[in-house]
């Protein structure tokens, strides 16, 4: 959220398509989705929580 490039990279990684349906673009659009993985366990950011200015 805090940086456009960061956002684009993370969106690109998360965006997936279930298939390409050629001229049926509506299906290609419907089949475009985002996949998000929460952290597998509680994690800390040592010495780097939020950081400074």
């Amino acid at each position: 959220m805090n940086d456009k490039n960061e956002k684009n990279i993370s969106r690109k990684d998360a965006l997936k398509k279930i298939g390409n349906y050629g001229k049926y673009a509506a299906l290609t659009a419907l089949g475009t989705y985002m996949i998000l993985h929460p952290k597998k366990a509680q994690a800390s950011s040592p010495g780097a929580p939020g950081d400074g200015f």
Partner: protein
Amino acid sequence: MSLMIVKKMDKKSAVWFERSNQYLMLDPFVASAVERIYNQENNEDLALELMNKHHVPREKAMDFISDLKEKLVFPNTAPKRVVQSDLKKHEIPDKFAFTTYYQIHSKVFKVECTTEFEYSLTHPKIAHLEVSNECDFDHTATIFSNGKTTLLYLENELTGSWSREEIHYFEGKFLMKIIEYIYEKPEDNWMGVFHASALSYKKDTILFLGGSGSGKSTSLALLQAHGFHCVADDFVPIDNDQLVHSFPAGISIKENSLETLLPYYPTLRSAAEYHYERLNKTVRYIPPKNTDYNTRYQCKALIFIKYDKHIDFEIKPISNMDAFEYLVPDSWISQNANNVAVFLEWFSLLPCYQLNYSNNEKMIAKVGRLFKNGL
């Protein structure tokens, strides 16, 4: 069969699968199709809907349904192989280089570490909670290494082991166990732990989120100096009643924020400095002023905050879906299906904002108004 949960969020639907613990953001029609396939409903009706609604031939509609089944439903719901835990017991050392006692809320913890490395992982954030070593204690955490693996024993029982690459999960587990003990709630009673700063005013709290360098902790320290309370920094636990709990770890401050904060926190000048070599940064910690650990807080809003020297002040609402994209990968969310349902319900109703600023006075005034009146 493992469970799935669907929750409408803005123009999309969030779909969670128990088996994979993944969240998919799907078009609502597709989410409903996935649910119907999962419930083994007749594909014919679904194909007809696709043909009529999207004007596609039957063959393409069936292809689409087949792809949903193969790529979304099956991988996320097929039975999972049970992996045996490989936790092996080790002989607990009988000598420790560091034995430290901490009073965290009403509990006293004895923390034993064999090396400075382990001590550096556990001590700095809770250093301000250290108490005399002659007191009774409620819980014991024993930390030692076996080769390059760090082991955590609680009450002489092995809790887990972590490689150097996963050491942030050791730190997370250590903090989580403290939270479980101080609130006497096991892990399944928690909806999630969020990588955020939580600030309170009366019984409400606002969560501030932001990536590295966003100014989140510095903003929290500034706000704390202006009458608000720090509920938790970096590690914000929320239980399955959607209530934010306090966690009194120190607020970490990088060197480049010292100038801004010294007028409010003069003791920062002489505060202990911790250098994190692997992160190439030096930080000091400000103890949170909040000593009221009995209050549970309702989360009023979620704010993505960013210090930006080019922007005086701006705040705007953002969609929950956009906020969800950032919150989920940066959070631990319980994998208990009941808690996931609670989380999705909580999040779908949470007002979300983006705040960019360089004007501290305006930021502080606005946060005050947000608590009192909303945006």
